[in-house]
């Protein structure tokens, strides 16, 4: 793909995250400024067709860009905003400017207080807009009507609520709601894999620099083998992401369910292994607030199953295999994508 786009976005994110003081919790103002600068750069529309002001790249090509949110520990939900904007364009939903995130799980409608509560909403405490999907209906919620119930440590998630009358119901068909869920899962996976790649890079660097017993700890076989294992997991996570994003056709084509489920399983399945090895190699410094490792391992651990755990997605995959009455698993594994779709 066009590495110019990758270089430009990487440069922007590097610059934006360097400005925010890494030692302290980032302020709401700093977040706002970062979000505004990204908005002004036009990158949030990158998945739109060229005619609509986007870059015209495919979903698969976009993965390298969406991963950067995790890799640079960007304090705004860039990836979710990108896919939400592309989805809104495809389904004629009027999505106002600003950051956007999605919630379809851990939500509760309270008929007495006539409100909707989200227990773990992605950047919930300060997001501009949130797309909320219940089983029956999809809503658009806005910042000014939001009640913040609890902001979790680390700032990635919050418990929030909206009075029901403030929600804008969206007229959508069932496909549109599924598409939104699938794109949101994919965006979250991309961010998680980006954080995994950064945690890996930090770990390799640290092991090569940290000296104990008179030599870098990377010279110890026990350390080498753990990092080799970590490399395998990170490569597998990235491959799974590429598979899920490999949708045929235009940028707005949504991921194939089977491939997405495989990716979500694979990434959730090995996420904690990756974070555990990163911490084991870093030792005590990795537990400190000052050293940045925790920002990436927090993303890895907290994002891995926010749309369902490894076990949940494995059962989704397995049920389909078991209920297919004749195909061998080998036939399923080797079928081409077109056969998947019709089958």
């Amino acid at each position, binding site marked *: 793909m066009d590495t110019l786009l990758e270089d430009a976005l990487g440069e922007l994110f590097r610059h934006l995250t360097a400005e925010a003081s890494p030692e302290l919790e980032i302020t709401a103002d700093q977040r706002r400024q970062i979000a505004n600068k990204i908005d002004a750069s036009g990158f949030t529309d990158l998945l739109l067709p060229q005619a609509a002001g986007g870059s015209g790249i495919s979903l698969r090509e976009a993965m390298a860009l969406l991963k950067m949110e995790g890799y640079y520990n960007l304090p705004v939900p860039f990836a979710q905003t990108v896919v939400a904007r592309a989805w809104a364009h495809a389904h004629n939903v009027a999505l106002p400017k600003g950051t956007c995130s999605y919630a379809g799980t851990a939500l509760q409608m309270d008929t007495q207080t006539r409100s909707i509560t989200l227990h773990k909403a992605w950047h919930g405490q300060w997001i501009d807009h949130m797309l909320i999907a219940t089983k029956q209906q999809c809503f658009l919620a806005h910042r000014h009507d939001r009640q913040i119930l609890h902001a979790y440590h680390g700032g990635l998630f919050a418990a929030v609520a909206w009075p029901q009358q403030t929600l804008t119901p969206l007229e959508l068909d069932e496909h549109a709601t599924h598409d939104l869920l699938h794109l949101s899962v994919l965006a979250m996976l991309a961010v998680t894999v980006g954080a995994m790649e950064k945690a890996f890079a930090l770990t390799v660097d640290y092991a090569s620099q940290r000296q104990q017993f008179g030599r870098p700890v990377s010279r110890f076989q026990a350390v080498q083998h753990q990092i*080799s294992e970590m490399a395998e997991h990170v490569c597998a996570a990235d491959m799974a992401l590429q598979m899920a994003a490999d949708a045929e056709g235009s940028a707005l084509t949504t991921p194939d369910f089977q491939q997405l489920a495989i990716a979500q399983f694979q990434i959730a399945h090995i996420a904690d292994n990756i974070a555990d090895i990163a911490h084991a190699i870093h030792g005590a410094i990795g537990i400190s607030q000052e050293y940045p490792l925790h920002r990436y391992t927090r993303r890895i651990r907290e994002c891995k199953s926010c749309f369902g755990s490894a076990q949940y997605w494995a059962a989704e995959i397995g049920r389909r295999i078991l209920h297919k009455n004749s195909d061998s698993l080998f036939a399923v594994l080797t079928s081409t994508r077109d056969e998947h779709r019709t089958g």
Partner: protein
Amino acid sequence: MLTNFELARLPEQDEHLRGAIRAFIQENTQHMTAFERARSWMGFDANFSKKLAQQGWLGLTLPQQYGGADKGYFTRFVVSEELLGAGAPVSAHWIADRQSGPLILRYGSQAQREFYLPKICRAQAFFCIGMSEPDSGSDLASIRTRAIKNDDGWILNGSKIWTTNAQHSHYMIALVRSSGTAQDKHKGLSQFIIDLSLPGITIRPIHDLAGDAHFSEVFFTDVQLAPEALVGQEGAGWEQVNAELAFERSGPERLYSSMALVECFIRECRQQGWDSPFIQSTVGEITARLAVLRAMSLAVTAKLANRQHPALEATLVKDYGTSLEQDIPKLIDQCLGQDPARMPSTELINTLSFVSQICPSYSLRGGTREILRGIIARGLGLR
């Protein structure tokens, strides 16, 4: 990342091959039980290999002038995975086709190519690989089998052990010391093609823990080798062996070793109506991990097809693949025992017991897990 796996697709013309191969395998393996299929590339059937050769599916990557098909790595991937996925008995020709043929093509003399390669393509020359010795396993450079130059070529003395299929093979490609001592490590090692019918060679099959005898110990006592038994350069054996192991690690061999067990289990789940959430998630886990690994293996194949040298990636996929292959019997065992009232068939019990017992070998053959992780660490710049 220092390593890089890029999603690749099989070219359409290679995908097209699948139907014919699958039908051929189905016809020629229909008598086989899951217990037999679970031998994977340890299952020996010379007749099956000859039939495959008649179809033109041996020596696929070798040039046509030697009887090969001049096809690329993708074609080989499709044919290999169809064979392995079905648990077809490929072991007679497997090593010749995968390692020895490409090695002779790359390092052999013109005369060696003309002599051996057509025989490999016709399934008339089966090969084994002599690497390990009683005191040299992972520390391969410490081997003591020695070839000493004489007027008629080379005199060979020593022994090899754990040599897969030595008792069924026509030739062995052995790594032996041709100069210096064990202290010289990688220096002074050479590769020889040894005709196993020569006087002075004794082959003693070794039974494994499952009751099979797929590997052997081979003794050489004053075996006279012709000068042209040397393959490649004298003293360059170590580099050649490493190139050869890269062939070994780059294929889909490291995905499907437990496949016969998986298929048998899924068939039985459907027949017996085993459908608990635990079984669903286990089947899903196996499916997902296999799918991702297959994509990684295909990415390695694409790099080979692009004339890159994905030695690090191939090592990584092999290590990751054997971990899954070894997890599969444990995962399936958990499912069967999850409800003690379940009555698995004798075929499933037999197959599970075989794979559970033999699977430690998956991360030993062709380089142990510890050796592979050391190679990955070196590739990452850690050592």
